[in-house]
């Protein structure tokens, strides 16, 4: 022991060794947040530096109370954040550019210089362009990245003409049912708004695991009188603090929701004003065709986008206003039928509500109980509570979308909220995730020069265009214009990966397998796929075409082999052989890095500048400073892409590569790539880039006027004063208030602003031909299809507790807080029947593939269910075969639909996304 120990035996008030006092001292403190894809994250932390090394981090605890009578957001943080420092010197850290030695995946490397690495990458890019074209260069949208990687990858791929796969399909965080109903999937209330809830339904989520910094608002809401109800097959972690747990049979949630809808209607508890204003339930439908009555049905020159309601006062069909949700003097009837004179004579029409009500006949609680396993009285009781109390479904990221029929489940959930007036008010709503509020970053992609002039011009032009559009059509709103502009602009950054996967990544066989689809898919999958392409529903987004096979894959900060539903085995078999060069940019060795040709070392948090993902969930722009230099030869990602761009330019000049075009006829010149990328040397320094983004964001008015890097370095975070100009921000349809928690859609509810959907209301009737054919034009319960084959168990999943995606999964500190390797949770009786004991190694298998994993036995797992939390990396499983090898990655054919109102691709929005829940598997002792 050190000699400087405080002697304790004679003193009445002994201390502890000076050693401990010294352990807690530091030289410098920096602001931090973990600006990778930890969403909603945005925890403001302080990083403590001693002797030039980061020694630890701790929450800043600096948030002020927002609204009197609502708890503050402090302290924020989680165990991953509290142990982040370990990652800086972790054993899996990549410190030098590495080149593969031996076969791909052999795990043997040689260190090479940055110059060698970038030369090899640049040449493979130019080879690919010369052989195939720019769309053979593919970037999966790795999401464990901060702003430097986002803008670096974005500008690099944009100026090269390569394709970046849309992250929302890659990680399946797109909620199709929300989009079908509302025209956007991402309305998001602030975490402190949860405190206002009176009923909190933890439904398709596990906030005890994955909302660690925010969960206290749920427990505090409970102490404030809120009832917390967990609806899930398993009695899992998030059941532990619920007042009720509803053990719903896997995949039957739509039946549960629809049954509650029936109770609400039958017992006269419906909020009629809300339902008729906010939704299409009062609109008229042709009872023969199940299609809306359109003005084009009634008069020759009528619009196909003009719909009708039945005015009870005048006893006739009247045009439903498109510019407002309010009905004025009209008293829209909720229940039909009626007869209307059309071009083809009189036809019988009814309301969407009446059609829906007819459909709900199948969901009498006693009947629904047989489907969903919830007691009929419990269904009634919960329905009555929801009808009379402020109800919130989860807090964020409703994961129903990870089910094949997740869209039907979501539409049923929203219908329940619609009938009970539960959105656009504090403590209510349902949501996925929302981002994209940092206008300065969006502007950065377009800017070629520092300073406010260019930004000012861009803002003036955008506003002038907005004004012109609004004047031309007075029924439009800023929200609709912003969203429509996004839908109608040619996809620049992301493309939906569905075409890439089907054509080049081996998905065709699985998707063409009718047994793994719903039986209501009447024709072969391929026919729907071809029809969608041929009808031009995905024009401009349906790349790469068949003549553009992939040649170079650049994974930046993500882990496509772990993440992709459909499996690493499939990608390694089908995609990998086509790739001439696989490049991974990461802080650490991931499954993808291990199968790459070149691995480039990136700077970690605390070693570069970063912002948290801007979201209304936390309502603050948080900052992560550079506290220390990156170790070894690691670089921040902007600099990495800059060096590759520089080398491409150099090699293109040496090789004489001529300008080329992409399939969408845009021209690129590799000989000026670096010049374009850096705007002739304007963007070289991360400090300059960040400062510019902040100043430009301030010009929009969403952060303080005097915002700058210097100012943020002092303050650590800014509370959003507004959400900005992006479509996603405007689509929140609420202006944030400084002294109020945030809830979206207030403009719809309070001011009657229309929605960006075909019918301009929350839309429950989807009268697209495909949907009518599938009997999904209205919400309905359908059994999950037998994806994977005929096996007795169903897989469920969700983010794990111990890692953010796979980023922290090899952190020895986190590994020690579980069993140090992956596990599945199996019900105790199931285990007994299978002859499996706790911690046994089992084989989990189906017709798609298999993986081996340890078993954890719990009576909380639903019989017949296998809970496989995701986030473990493939290299943690025997033979590196992870759970996604047994996930066929099916998509629902209906999500290829287009040519219909709001069914149009824009980044992160309408597109098919592979699912994995309810995959069928068998289990046996390995």
């Amino acid at each position, binding site marked *: *022991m050190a000699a400087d*120990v405080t*002697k304790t*035996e004679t003193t*009445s*008030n*002994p*201390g*502890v060794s000076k050693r*401990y*006092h010294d352990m807690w001292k530091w030289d410098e403190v920096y602001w931090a947040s973990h600006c990778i894809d930890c969403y909603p994250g945005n925890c403001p932390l*302080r990083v403590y530096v001693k002797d030039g090394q980061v020694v630890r981090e*701790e929450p800043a*605890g600096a948030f002020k109370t927002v609204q009197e009578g609502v*708890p503050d957001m*402090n302290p*924020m*943080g989680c*165990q991953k954040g*509290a*142990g982040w420092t370990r990652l800086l010197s*972790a054993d899996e850290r990549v410190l030098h550019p590495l080149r593969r030695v031996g076969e791909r995946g*052999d*795990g*043997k*490397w040689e260190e090479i210089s940055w110059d060698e690495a970038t030369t090899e990458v640049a040449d493979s890019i130019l080879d690919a362009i010369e052989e195939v074209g720019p769309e053979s260069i593919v970037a999966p949208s790795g999401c464990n990245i901060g702003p430097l990687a986002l803008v670096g990858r974005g500008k690099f791929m944009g100026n090269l003409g390569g394709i970046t796969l849309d992250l929302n399909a890659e990680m399946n965080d797109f909620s199709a049912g929300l989009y079908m109903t509302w025209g956007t999937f991402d309305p998001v209330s602030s975490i402190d708004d949860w405190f206002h809830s009176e009923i909190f339904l933890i439904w398709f989520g596990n906030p005890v695991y994955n909302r*660690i910094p925010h*969960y*206290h608002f749920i*427990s*505090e809401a*409970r*102490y404030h009188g809120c009832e917390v109800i*967990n609806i899930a097959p398993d*009695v899992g972690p998030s*059941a*532990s603090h619920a*007042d009720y*747990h509803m*053990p719903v049979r896997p995949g039957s949630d739509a039946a549960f929701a629809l049954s509650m809808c029936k109770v609400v209607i039958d017992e006269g508890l419906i909020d009629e004003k809300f339902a008729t204003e906010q939704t299409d339930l009062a609109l008229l439908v042709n009872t023969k065709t199940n299609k809306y009555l359109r003005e084009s049905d009634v008069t020759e020159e009528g619009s196909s986008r003009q719909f009708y309601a039945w005015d009870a006062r005048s006893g006739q069909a009247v045009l439903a206003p498109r510019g407002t949700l309010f009905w004025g003097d009209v008293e829209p009837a909720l229940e039909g039928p009626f007869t209307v004179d059309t071009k083809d004579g009189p036809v019988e029409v009814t309301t969407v509500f009446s059609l829906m009500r007819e459909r709900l006949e199948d969901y009498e609680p006693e009947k629904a*109980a047989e489907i969903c396993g919830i*007691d009929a*009285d*419990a269904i009634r009781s919960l329905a009555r509570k929801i009808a009379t109390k402020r109800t919130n479904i989860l807090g964020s990221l409703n994961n129903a979308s990870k089910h094949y029929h997740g869209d039907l489940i979501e539409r049923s959930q929203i219908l329940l909220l619609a009938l009970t007036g539960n959105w656009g008010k504090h403590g209510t709503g349902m949501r996925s995730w929302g981002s994209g509020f940092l206008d300065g970053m969006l502007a950065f992609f377009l800017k070629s020069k520092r300073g406010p002039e260019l930004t000012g011009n861009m803002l003036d032009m955008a506003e002038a265009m907005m004004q012109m559009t609004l004047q031309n059509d007075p029924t439009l709103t800023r929200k609709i214009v912003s969203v429509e502009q996004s839908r109608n602009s040619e996809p620049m950054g992301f493309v939906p990966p569905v075409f890439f996967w089907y054509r080049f990544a081996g998905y065709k066989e699985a998707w063409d397998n009718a047994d793994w689809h719903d039986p209501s898919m009447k024709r072969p999958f391929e026919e729907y796929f071809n029809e969608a392409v041929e009808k031009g529903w995905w024009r401009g987004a349906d790349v790469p075409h068949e003549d553009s096979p992939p040649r170079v894959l650049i994974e930046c900060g993500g882990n496509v082999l772990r993440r992709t539903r459909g499996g690493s085995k499939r990608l390694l078999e089908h995609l990998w052989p086509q790739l001439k060069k696989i490049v991974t940019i990461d802080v650490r*060795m991931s499954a993808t890095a*291990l199968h790459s040709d070149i691995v480039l070392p990136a700077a970690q948090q605390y070693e570069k500048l970063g912002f948290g993902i801007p979201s209304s969930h936390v309502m603050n722009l948080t900052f992560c400073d550079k506290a220390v230099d990156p170790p070894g030869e690691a670089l921040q990602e902007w600099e990495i892409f800059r060096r590759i761009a520089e080398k491409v330019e150099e090699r293109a000049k040496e090789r004489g590569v001529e300008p080329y075009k992409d399939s969408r006829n845009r021209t690129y010149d590799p000989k000026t790539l670096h010049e374009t990328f850096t705007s002739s040397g304007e963007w070289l320094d991360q400090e300059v880039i960040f400062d510019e983004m902040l100043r430009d964001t301030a010009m929009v008015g969403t952060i303080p006027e005097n915002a700058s890097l210097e100012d943020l370095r002092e303050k650590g975070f800014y509370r959003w004063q507004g959400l900005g100009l992006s479509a996603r921000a405007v689509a929140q349809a609420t202006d944030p208030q400084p002294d109020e928690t945030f809830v979206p859609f207030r403009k719809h509810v309070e001011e009657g602003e229309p929605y960006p959907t075909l019918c301009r209301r929350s839309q429950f009737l989807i009268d697209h031909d495909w949907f009518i054919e599938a009997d999904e034009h209205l919400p309905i319960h359908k059994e999950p299809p037998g994806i994977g084959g005929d096996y007795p168990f169903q897989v469920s999943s969700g983010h794990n*507790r111990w890692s953010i995606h796979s980023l922290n999964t090899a952190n020895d*500190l986190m*590994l020690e807080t*579980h069993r*140090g*390797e992956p596990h599945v949770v199996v019900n105790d009786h199931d285990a007994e029947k299978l002859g499996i004991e706790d*911690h046994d190694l089992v084989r989990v298998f189906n017709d798609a593939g298999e993986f081996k994993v340890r078993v*954890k036995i*719990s*009576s*909380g797992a639903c019989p017949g269910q296998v809970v496989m939390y995701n986030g473990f*990396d493939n*290299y*943690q499983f025997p033979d590196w075969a992870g759970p996604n090898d047994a996930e066929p990655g099916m998509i629902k054919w209906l999500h290829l639909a287009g040519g219909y109102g709001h069914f149009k691709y824009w980044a992160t929005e309408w597109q098919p996304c592979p699912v994995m829940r309810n995959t069928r598997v068998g289990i046996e002792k390995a």
Partner: protein
Amino acid sequence: MSASTTGTRQIAMVLDLNKCIGCQTCAVACKSLWCKDEGTDYQWWCTVNTMPGRGTPKDYEEMGGGYKDSIPVRGIAPSREDFGGGWKFNHSEVFFDGNPEHKPLRVAGEQPQWGPNWDEDQGAGEYPNSYFYYMPRLCNFCTHAACVDACPRGAMAKRSSDGIVVRDEDRCRGYQFCAEACPYKKIYFNYELKISQHCIGCIPRLEQGVAPACARQCPGRLVFVGYLDDEDGPIHKLVNEWKVALPLHPEYETLPNVYYIPPLAPAPFNEDGSVNEAGSRIPPEHLESQFGPGVHDAIDTLKTEVEKARSGEASGLMDLLIAYNWQDLFPDFTRDPIDITWD
């Protein structure tokens, strides 16, 4: 009771188990600050376990220690295997040294059969009436500290200023009588330094007016810290006025100063699938085995006050537990560490 165990003032903690989500942030915060040196690799002074479960160290409740009718109960010192942990992994073998056979990331050497959180989320009960809750544990700063009494070296003491139980690591010879005597088994042996070690109550932080790491970093906002005799503070109100905060295993007779708000749980189901509104999913006898007979009244009080809140009535207890301002959790230790300047 020896004079050495009688403090004049006592810092106490209240941990609200209805807010604990088992996230391990307290555990990681503590370990990241204090357990980084040699011999501390397997030490987690603050642990969080799923209950019912075997706890940390494994089956600690069967290891003896404490007192029975004021007579010391013979106990055993937990072994490294009982605690588990301190794992080293084969990162280099998997990632960098050549691994064509795709060996997975594993603990190097013998595979562990136990760890600090091995039975996480397993719980008890029959589906769908299964249940579990989370239990964070650290040094209990006992008023009648068995460890202090057991130390033949006089290396341990209870401070008069705040009742924190401290060890003079320089005097400690690693006899482990303290570990045998501690009924909560929160004392580790440092196999490198051949001394025992345990939670230091974050004394360096307390002395600067900063809350302990486990409390200040707890994202669930469930750790109250304060002086037990401060009648205006949350600890006194929860322990002595509302009587909803209870010591763990009071039968050990060490008079612990870490108190717990016992867990509520979802209403159970009857055989026919209907909800048993009045039923108790966690068996009352289990709760009594953890928190003593006072737990039944405590649960009743909690339920009554929750019900009040639901009907819109004011409840002082609910307001206390909500802790509208984060710093109300530790009113005497609200200093922001960055305001400290070191010499």
